[in-house]
């Protein structure tokens, strides 16, 4: 693999990380809650798809039609039933509850599906690629994932800026008390934001399950990558999240190009470097995503 190839593949991988980061960023933007079970819910979505593939013989992409709304509904109910109770001045209860959820989801999946590595199979599309040069090819699937990530970020940005519901969500995020005085049902807004976040995390989980192996223990790694993308890009910035994902993806792939075993460490070190030198992220604050 040449360096150019490593960078190109890293950029595409960055699309996947941005996809993971979107939900984390949205929940923080609207509710000031960091969901420590974020990665585990992505894995839950992937296993949901796996069950549908195995039992109903659906293509992994078709399962999205069931998994994404299913996880969104689950997110809505989880926020209304459980997470709403943790909303308050102190971040401690939300962190304790989401960390508890992470342990519960991870170990339930382990109990049901064992610790084996799994993969969602997509057939020829998964391995096909555009041949750009002799040693540079762009896989169809990573390219599609990148396009989906960009489309999702644009769509979410338009939703938050241009629609009535998006404005209400931003108003609730800015000042919950005043929004309530204006007749906004803040609990419903929070639950809807969580539903959207869970839809994106399910999408990311399934697409990731096609692109690479996953197991019940994959959640924390996915959470950490999503978090690194958010922080590298800059909190509360849409394009920052995409840029953060890309920087992380490129750092990991270039790290692997230098020394194959150091992919993850290289990503972490670039994250720490950004944290040390530019803690506000590469792009400073903008929209609340």
């Amino acid at each position, binding site marked *: 693999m040449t360096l150019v190839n490593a960078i190109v593949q890293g950029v595409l991988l960055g699309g996947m990380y941005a996809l993971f980061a979107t939900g984390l960023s949205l929940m923080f933007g609207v509710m000031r809650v960091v969901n420590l079970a974020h990665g585990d819910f992505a894995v839950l979505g992937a296993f949901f798809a796996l069950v549908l593939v195995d039992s109903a013989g659906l293509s992994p992409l078709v399962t999205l039609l069931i998994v994404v709304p299913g996880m969104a509904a689950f997110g809505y109910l989880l926020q209304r039933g459980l997470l709403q109770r943790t909303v308050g001045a102190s971040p401690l*209860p939300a962190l304790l509850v989401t960390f508890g959820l992470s342990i519960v989801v991870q170990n339930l999946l382990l109990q049901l599906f064992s610790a084996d590595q799994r993969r969602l199979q997509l057939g020829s599309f998964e391995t096909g690629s555009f041949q750009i040069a002799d040693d540079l090819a762009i896989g169809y699937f990573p390219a599609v994932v990148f396009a989906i990530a960009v489309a999702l970020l644009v769509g979410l940005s338009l939703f938050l800026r241009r629609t009535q519901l998006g404005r209400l969500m931003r108003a609730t995020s800015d000042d919950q008390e005043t929004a309530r005085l204006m007749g906004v049902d803040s609990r419903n807004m929070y639950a809807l934001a969580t539903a959207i976040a869970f839809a994106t995390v399910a999408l990311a989980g399934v697409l990731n399950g096609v692109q690479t192996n996953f197991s019940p223990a994959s959640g924390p790694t996915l959470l950490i990558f999503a978090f690194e993308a958010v922080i590298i890009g800059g909190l509360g910035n849409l394009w920052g999240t995409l840029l953060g994902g890309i920087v992380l993806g490129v750092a990991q792939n270039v790290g692997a190009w230098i020394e194959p075993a150091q992919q*993850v460490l290289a990503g972490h070190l670039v994250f*720490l470097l950004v*944290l040390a030198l530019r803690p506000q992220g590469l792009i400073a604050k903008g929209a609340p995503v």
Partner: protein
Amino acid sequence: MTEPVTIRRATTSTRVSGGLLVLGVVALAMLPYIVVPSQVFGVIDLLVFVVLATMWNLLAGYGGMVSVGQQAYIGIGAYGLVYLADQVGVDAFLAVPLVAILSAAIAIPVSFLAFRLVGGYFAIGTWVIAEVVRLLTVQVDDLGGGSGLSLRSLSDIDSKLRIAYTYWFALGVATVAVVATYLLIRSRLGIALTAIRDEPTAAASNGVEVTRVKRIVFVVSAAGCGAAGAILALSSLRVQPDSVYSVQWTAFMIFMVVIGGVGTLEGPVVGAVLFFLLREWLAQFGVIYLVVLGAVAIVTTLFVPQGLWGLVSRGRLRLFAVGHTVRLPADPNPTPPARPTRP
């Protein structure tokens, strides 16, 4: 001529319990003379849990810093002990305080990075740092790479004696951890911490050096977790990167502190004892054991946020003299006595 307002820290219950706690530690110190080594060995785990829970509570319950990365210092402590004992030639037991200092020293630069993040992002940030420490550890050939190290220096000591010594060191570390936390909370720093926990902006505007106070807590907590890691290495005679750097330690710490009562000195100790007793019983359920642990932590956080200790003491009974009882001067129109405040 008016009498001054007096503020007392100790109450009758804290005086009685203070004496009982000293007696308790003395009684625990006698344990190796009374029971068989295998039972003493079991209690070492309990003492490690007490240290870990107390340190996590200091960080999150008093300092408001939820860390998911304290396993970094457990690992540094465990590896540090084996390295100092086997490769440098320091006495394995004397290495315990040395690795506590080492962990504290490493925590100082780490705090400068981690403190750039707050709340939930601080939590994941500490997790990343713990992962980086693990990934760096397995690179070093002297530390056994991915398979870890065995502690060889203690192999020629009689196992009965080794267990007794390890137990006494564990008891020492647990006592120091609890007493140090008590002194810290009782001091001026403790008042600053309470102010920061309740309202950081107001605390800063009243002259509390928020970052400095938090850094002290972060470093002390790292030292305690490092010492706990050292005890784990002494008792198991083995360090493996995947077990000492496991995030499961954080899950255990959170469980113990939440169940016992976050933000109290007694809570983590109660939680550690409960976890120690439950662990054996829950182990028969395999993976479901962790599901139960997580679920209980969620339910407790939501419905019994004061924890088991809070439920029992109802905020009145206190074993450590960290509260303030205000006694007003004699008044011709007496007002009811002020309730003790939360520490």
